[in-house]
């Protein structure tokens, strides 16, 4: 195993922050967030799972798709600029998997989303293994582990005075090529795992489509978008044109895209005003079935990384594991 002293790690991170945008867990008043940091000192080391996943650095809450400039009958379109390099440090395995899941929709499935792809090409994922699982974590139920390195470019595991380092991709190799790594005997101690039951099979989710309980769950749902916006894999978006300040005689606009969620009441409205998912139960069902049935069908992987954010943050305790557990029981 190769290790790096904490001192050298901090020096390296300071250096990275000077070259690229360095994003890492950072303590802001009410909690820990992935934020751009200037120095290693600003990193929250002993933090639990950050409040939000790192999705916003690849798929920002809102961004410009293009700028439109109208001058009389003429129209000029201007594409938005491309992304700058960034390193996300201290990424949790669940959040790295979230990014891999987004990749399948935005990059791996043609046509490529150039904005996402440009950010993704310019982003390195440097993980920090969790030593244990939090109360609401269920990464083990979706085939991950608290110290799962698979979706990272580089993985660090904290061993106290030193950290074990492992590069998993050529880009990761290049990133740590000049680090003063020390070869040490022994293996990295695996994180403590907790097996979490309750997650139905894709087949059982699919079978649940006409289950009467969706309506009961829907009665409690407030139709906010919290679960989708704290989710590492929810990627629905809305597109609209908005006016920009313009010089005299011209009209400037920007075409924006911004996060949207299928939990919103008017989300699935058709142009004629018909709403196929007017009922909150059908929206909840759609979101959960998207995670485990629809998204895998469209893009490959299941769109749940077991981070447990939706379990904790739901104002009315709509619990994926509880809903799923009951469905699995019904299926058996």
């Amino acid at each position, binding site marked *: 195993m190769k290790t790096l002293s904490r001192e050298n790690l901090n020096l390296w991170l300071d250096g990275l922050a000077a070259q690229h945008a360095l994003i890492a867990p950072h303590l802001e008043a009410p909690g820990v967030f992935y934020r751009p940091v200037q120095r290693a000192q600003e990193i929250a080391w002993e933090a639990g799972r950050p409040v939000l996943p790192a999705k916003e650095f690849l798929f920002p809450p809102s961004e410009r*798709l*293009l700028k*439109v400039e*109208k001058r009389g*009958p*003429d*129209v000029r*379109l201007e*594409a938005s600029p491309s992304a700058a390099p960034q390193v996300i440090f201290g990424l949790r395995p669940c959040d790295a998997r979230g990014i891999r899941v987004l990749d399948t*929709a*935005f990059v791996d*499935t*043609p*046509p*490529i*989303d*150039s*904005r996402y*792809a440009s950010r993704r090409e310019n982003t390195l994922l440097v993980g920090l293994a969790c030593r244990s699982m939090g109360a609401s974590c269920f990464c083990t139920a979706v085939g991950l582990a608290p110290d799962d390195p698979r979706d990272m470019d580089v993985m660090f595991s904290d061993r106290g005075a030193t950290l074990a380092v492992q590069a998993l991709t050529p880009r990761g190799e290049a990133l740590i090529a000049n680090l003063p790594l020390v070869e040490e005997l022994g293996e990295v101690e695996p994180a403590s795992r907790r097996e979490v039951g309750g997650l139905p099979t894709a087949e059982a989710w699919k079978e649940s*489509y006409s289950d009467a309980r969706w309506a009961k769950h829907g009665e409690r749902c407030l139709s906010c978008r919290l679960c989708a916006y704290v989710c590492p894999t929810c*990627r*629905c*978006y*809305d*597109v*609209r*044109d908005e*006016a920009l300040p313009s010089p005299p005689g011209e*009209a400037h*606009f920007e*075409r924006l*895209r911004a996060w*949207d969620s*299928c939990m919103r009441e008017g*989300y*699935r*409205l*058709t*142009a*004629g*005003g*018909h709403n*196929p*998912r007017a009922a909150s139960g*059908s929206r909840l069902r*759609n979101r959960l*079935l*998207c995670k485990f*049935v*629809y998204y895998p*069908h*469209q893009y490959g992987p299941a769109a749940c990384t077991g981070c447990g954010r939706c379990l904790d943050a739901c104002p009315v305790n709509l619990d994926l594991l509880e809903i799923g557990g009951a469905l699995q029981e019904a299926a058996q």
Partner: protein
Amino acid sequence: MSTADGADPMYPLLGRLVSSRDMGREIKLLGVKLLNGTQPRFPAYAPGQFAFLSAFGIGEAPFGLASTTERGEVLEFAVQRLGSVTTGLHELAEGDALGVRGPLGNTFPMEAFQHKNLLVLGGGIGGAPLRPVIHSVLDHRQDYGQLTILWAARHPSLLIFRDEYESWRAAPHTELHLTVDEADAAWDHHVGLMTDLVRQVAPSAANTVAITCGPPIMIYHVDKLLSELGFAPEQRYVTLEARMHCGLGKCGRCNMGELLVCRDGPVFSMAQVGNFLESYL
């Protein structure tokens, strides 16, 4: 977004409105020609596909292509004024610039329809994406069997492509049946819902494919009726609508179960979407 050749499919091509013609109450047929220059041409497209039109500064919305590649390079769209984008498109004058993104979505399997009888059921503005089917059949009349068109609207003023009815009727082995929910004084055709008209025409399911487009409630009931008339799910096609934002299978807006209307559709056979139709309603 970029395709294999590096073009950005979220980036619209610039076009000009070459014609804007009133077809019915608040319904216009827009003719769009792409600007010459360095831009790539609008690729060849097939019946069933759709494209996004941008009213710059207001937004973008998907519309079924109502023209065929064979009949010329002008792209035609039937646009009913409903919301902000359609209002913006209606207010454009001939010569104004607009954006076009497409063609997107799948197509009607016109080859598989050859030598079959076709039953085309269009309700209101839902008739727009069916016009390319009708035109393709009329332009290759010998390749298809009997063509029966059932055309409906809430009111005669909402019937689209009225100036083409003569030519449709004049084609060999072609029938056109009209109905409106509510007639005006000049109306001398059937009055009633599309389902009434289907019952009256009583089409035979033998060697026939039915293609339906219209409001969800019409699709649902017409489909039920066709099933009763002996049309198997594989013989019943629909083209569906959703207020999508990308048309590329990304934005997630248009899913119907595991299918995306934009990428897997908009044309579906009932064998694919029969189970979901209830939820679409």
